[in-house]
């Protein structure tokens, strides 16, 4: 088994940060090491520094490496009960706003955006809502923007749509051709896609709902704190945050500012007026 040399890892990530601005220094190490080993196998190099040399003056090659260092696992209506709760318990809370901003943070290849857009349409919120779909990976965003997927995803889409409480014919939302399915462009009319890096970028909208699922598990606790802080500063008072089913806000310094809306499906409501003591984290970052 290849063991990543810590000095090399350090230099590799410092190099990427200086040259391209992506900061991997606070990613959880065990799985990242596995991906680094896979990189060395793919590029047939003995050391990480050889990979670094390959990408230093080749942005195209760097994008490929970036794709391999980030995780794009996602699916339509992932954890269907999450979307059922979103439909039944969370969207009604947003009904009262004349304009609704939703941030899909770490949207990957767009399956979550499609799922969300369908819910908004069916609940009659699509005219008022804007989805800001962001990801760190330009490659993933490109797929998300196109809204075209392999035919093989459809059985899964149909099944999860129904499990998430969908009652229409799922084929209303897509057309199939040449082994591919294209989701209706009308679903994307109120979606803004944009590159955004949760590690280094800052607040860019005032959000009523943030979905960030299975992104935080790749980060160390320190970095998770930064992201929760970022979300706190982005959310309106009483705004809602939904995270992955194995993630928790419990250990975060932001925890006192969130009350649990739904534990099982990980929905939390932000309370900007929570008791703020001296040295509180919100005070510290503002």
């Amino acid at each position: 088994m290849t063991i990543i040399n810590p000095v090399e890892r350090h230099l590799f990530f410092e190099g990427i940060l200086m040259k391209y601005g992506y900061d991997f220094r606070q990613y959880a190490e065990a799985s990242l090491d596995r991906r680094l080993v896979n990189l060395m196998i793919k590029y047939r190099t003995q050391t990480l520094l050889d990979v670094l040399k390959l990408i230093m003056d080749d942005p195209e090659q760097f994008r490929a490496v970036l794709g391999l260092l980030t995780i794009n696992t996602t699916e339509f209506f992932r954890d269907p009960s999450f979307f059922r709760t979103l439909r039944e318990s969370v969207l009604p809370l947003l009904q009262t706003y004349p304009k609704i901003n939703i941030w899909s943070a770490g949207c990957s290849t767009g399956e979550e955006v499609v799922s969300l857009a369908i819910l908004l349409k069916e609940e009659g919120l699509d005219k008022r809502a804007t989805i800001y779909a962001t990801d760190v990976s330009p490659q993933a965003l490109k797929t998300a923007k196109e809204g075209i997927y392999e035919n093989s995803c459809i059985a899964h889409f149909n099944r999860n749509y129904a499990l998430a409480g969908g009652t229409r014919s799922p084929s209303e939302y897509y057309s199939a051709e040449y082994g591919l399915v294209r989701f209706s462009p009308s679903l994307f009319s109120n979606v803004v896609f944009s590159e955004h890096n949760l590690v280094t970028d800052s607040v860019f909208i005032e959000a009523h709902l943030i979905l960030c699922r299975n992104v935080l598990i790749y980060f160390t606790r320190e970095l998770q704190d930064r992201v929760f802080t970022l979300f706190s500063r982005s959310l309106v008072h009483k705004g809602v945050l939904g995270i992955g089913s194995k993630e928790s806000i419990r250990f975060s310094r932001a925890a006192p500012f969130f009350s649990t809306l739904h534990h099982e499906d990980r929905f939390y409501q932000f309370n900007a007026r929570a008791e703020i003591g001296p040295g509180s984290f919100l005070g510290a970052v503002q």
Partner: protein
Amino acid sequence: MIGTSAGGVTTVQALLRELHGKLSLPLLIVQHLPADARVNPALIFGSFTHATVLEAYDKVAVELNHVYFAPPSYHLLIERDFTLSLTQDEPVHFSRPSIDVLFESAARAYGSELCGVLLTGANQDGAAGLKAISDLGGYTMVQDPRDAEVGTMPQAALSLFTPNFTGTVKELSRQLLNVANGGAV
């Protein structure tokens, strides 16, 4: 660290029963399951052991007298600071959770202070991970393929390298206690 697949539930139950009240070291277990399986390991395994049985969650420190199971559809890894990590990286050997992923990360974190056990199963996952544990000085054990409900997985490990110990579930648990008490784990 324990890895298992087909036939694993009853085998792990039997192993835990043998270790009941005798082993305080933390156990991490990957049992292959369908991605949408809704399982509560505490219900399935809790009555077989004195230890606290739970589904592993992200970023918690590993504790004595705890048995952690990887949740369906997540890889379970252990960090160098002995906290757990969950990820949804690509499946390995068509498996997520993958035994190789847990074993390799544990080998890095614990080195020689680790014992890896590979039980019954119907694919190749776990063999390379167990060898990684061995390469980094850990103690490795494989269920005798003739004792296993499905022998493919232990056989894959035996074909790859020679583990420290091979035996039935009863023999494995006895040896595990020997090694643990001898301070080799």
